[in-house]
């Protein structure tokens, strides 16, 4: 008994010695993850979904009008609402949780490159079911990109194809079906968030591999690596295949907005990192704030600053690119690769340094450690 007491006392004494050692005084972590989750859910995720539902509804309405009346004006309305919805998607695509994950939302929305032959044959047959996972390459934004800009050499030819007595109606029907499907999917996801999932998400404020902070942070990184860095830049530039794949750029047939979409996506990710609300009005608890609370540094600068600087650097490089990424890949791929490298540099900051500081594991398998 005495020995045990002595040991306990010794441990206590030793620990006081340890704590007196101010060699590296770490700020105490007082961060409240649930406040961050509430900011994410209420100020960013749900508003982003609401905006996407609204713009996809507008797209669907425009497609309905166009189906009934194939005028140049109505086509233009479809094209304008398509671009608006595509921009909004850049802000709602990264949240692959809950219903969005269950429905494979991202696959139905932006699987690139779109399957032109498949689309054409479906339209020719006039019988298709866009609910099937096998049909993901024949719908979503890339499919509409093809139909709205790719079925003719210029806008007049596209309009002509839609007005064609033989095939026009089938095309218009398909545009409407694709737009409706997108609106439906997005609405399902939003209503799930509004009917319970928001509370589940916010309530799961723990720190295991399935806790919301860990899941969302992993999703954030996954989206950044896979969809922003690789999908929009790396894969078309041939980074992973050795061969350039210009057909994989976003909005390949539109030819004018790949850069715009990438920039919106990059802004969305940086805003999410900084906890900026969807409307830009409020800055709430975020990964940035978490890192500041932890006092994390990299090469003597605050880690959050290093990450933000690299986001800015990537934006500068991307701003220097032209609008048509397919053309850049074909003629000036080196500047495409430069954009890739600028995006790549933040992967290490976020995936290694930030995750370690926040004590988040990169794998979803909640395995044993020792």
């Amino acid at each position, binding site marked *: 008994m005495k020995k045990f007491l002595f040991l306990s006392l010794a441990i206590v004494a030793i620990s006081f010695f340890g704590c007196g050692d101010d060699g*590296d005084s*770490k700020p*105490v972590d007082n961060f409240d993850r649930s406040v961050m989750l509430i900011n994410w859910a209420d100020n960013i995720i749900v508003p982003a979904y609401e905006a996407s539902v609204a713009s996809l509804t507008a797209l669907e309405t425009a497609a309905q009008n166009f189906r009934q009346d194939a005028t140049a004006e109505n086509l233009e309305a479809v094209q304008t609402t398509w671009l608006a919805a595509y921009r909004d998607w850049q802000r709602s695509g990264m949240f692959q949780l809950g219903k969005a994950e269950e429905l494979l939302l991202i696959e139905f929305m932006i699987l690139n490159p779109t399957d032109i032959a498949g689309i054409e044959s479906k339209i020719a047959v006039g019988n298709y079911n866009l609910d099937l996972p096998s049909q993901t390459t024949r719908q979503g934004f890339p499919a509409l990109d093809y139909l709205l800009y790719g079925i003719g050499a210029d806008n007049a030819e596209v309009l002509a194809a839609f007005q064609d007595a033989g095939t026009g109606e089938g095309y218009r029907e398909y545009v409407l079906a694709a737009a409706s499907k997108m609106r439906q999917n997005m609405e399902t996801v939003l209503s799930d968030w509004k009917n319970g999932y928001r509370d589940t998400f916010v309530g799961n404020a723990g720190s295991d591999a399935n806790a919301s902070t860990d899941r969302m942070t992993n999703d954030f990184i996954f989206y950044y690596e896979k969809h922003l860095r690789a999908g929009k830049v790396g894969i078309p530039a041939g980074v992973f295949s050795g061969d350039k794949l210009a057909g994989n750029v976003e909005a390949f047939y539109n030819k004018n907005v790949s850069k715009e979409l990438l920039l919106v996506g990059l802004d969305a990710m940086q805003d999410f990192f900084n906890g900026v609300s969807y409307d830009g009005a409020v800055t709430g608890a975020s990964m940035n704030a978490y890192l500041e609370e932890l006092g994390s540094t990299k090469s003597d600068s605050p880690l959050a600053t290093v990450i933000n600087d690299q986001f800015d650097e990537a934006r500068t490089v991307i701003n220097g690119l032209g609008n048509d990424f397919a053309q850049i890949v074909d003629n000036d791929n080196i500047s495409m690769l430069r954009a890739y490298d600028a995006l790549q540099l933040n992967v290490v900051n976020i995936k290694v340094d930030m995750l370690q500081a926040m004590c988040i594991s990169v*794998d979803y398998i909640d395995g044993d450690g020792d």
Partner: protein
Amino acid sequence: MQESSAAPLATFRIFFGLLMLISLIRFAALGWIEKLYLEPTFHFSYYGFEWVKPLGNYTYLLFIVCAIAAICVSLGYRYRLSVLVFFLSFTYIELMDKTTYLNHYYFVSIMSFLLLWLPAHRYYSLDARRDPSIASEKVPKWSVDAIKVLLAIVYFYAGLAKLNTDWLLSAQPLSIWMPARYHLPIIGPFLREGWMHYAMSWAGAAYDLTIPFFLWYSRTRPLAFVAVVVFHVLTRVLFSIGMFPYIMIVSTLIFFSPATHQRMLDGITWLGTRLKIRPRPIHYGSGRPVHFRQRLVLPVLYVFFVLQLLLPFRYLLYPGELFWTEQGYRFSWRVMLMEKAGYAQFKIVDGATGKRLYVDNSEYLNAFQEKQMSFQPDFILEYAHYLADVYRERGFTTEPEVYVESYVALNGRSSQPYVDPEVNLLQFEPSLRNKTWLLPFKDEIKGF
């Protein structure tokens, strides 16, 4: 030959077998057989054991065989054979993919190897009832002590490994791990306090270094056991470490007196009678002295223990910081010492044309494998060779060169470049030789 009661060995055998059975069932129930062994297309091998791979659907059979062996060990039924089968099947499972390496799996492997040589089936077992000529209430004292010594080595070496500047002076990695658990009831708020990280680090080191001695002496034993329970339950609450705490708590029971163990066995008998299980009594002491094959076994145990004492120090044969290079890190009771994370981007270059591409690791590895690979050099090298084969087969190039740009962060330090990005990894074959292609660690960690 000093003799002692056979009861401690018998209870150890029963509980060990039982815990192993539970561990295997848990592993299967969590779906880990599929996730870890069946779904990945590529598996990381231990050097020299490249031939050990998952067996497709027969992997389930392997787990079943292992579980049956665990039951037989627990019952003491054909003990030597069943513990041999358990040792081989369990070790095979662990060798299939080193991604899943855990010190406690290694502990189970060598403990079952040790049990193979111990007469744990002479008492309170089906074997003893079947064959009265081997039944015995006494076993050589060394056979019980062998288990205690192995446990003492595990604890003491785990304690030694904690005597380093990261652990003691920076409270790393606990000061990264503990704050994240702030939501836990009662202890949660304390987990973000700096003094708490130091207190836990120092207490943990003190616990590991001293607990074997406090368990060994009868006067300190009861309180030491309380400390064992508190310590392991705490680690279970704080970290996700599966069955290990329970295995250690139950294993340390071996230090208790024969009388205590006899009471546990009487408890099992009582439980049996309540369940209307009344086995025929076992006849001990048929008069003939029981033979223990000491001349064969003792030399084996000496070699085994000398190896156990030396193996954790093999890192001294390598230059560089152990935590950084991990050369000699495994099989050394270095438990919970590092928060390490990495990122590795592989580049395949066609040696003939200079054409190049980057590898999307998720095409070949699951998230867990990618994570482990990104900061362990033997994984990186093995994977580089695999990638070369893949891209040769795909017809990308007949003369591949594989480079990696990698960054590793260790115990809260900023990430640093890890592998020399100018080195074609294919110039090096997997081996135990020093890995010269690693970049030096830009800091110093002093200690064991």
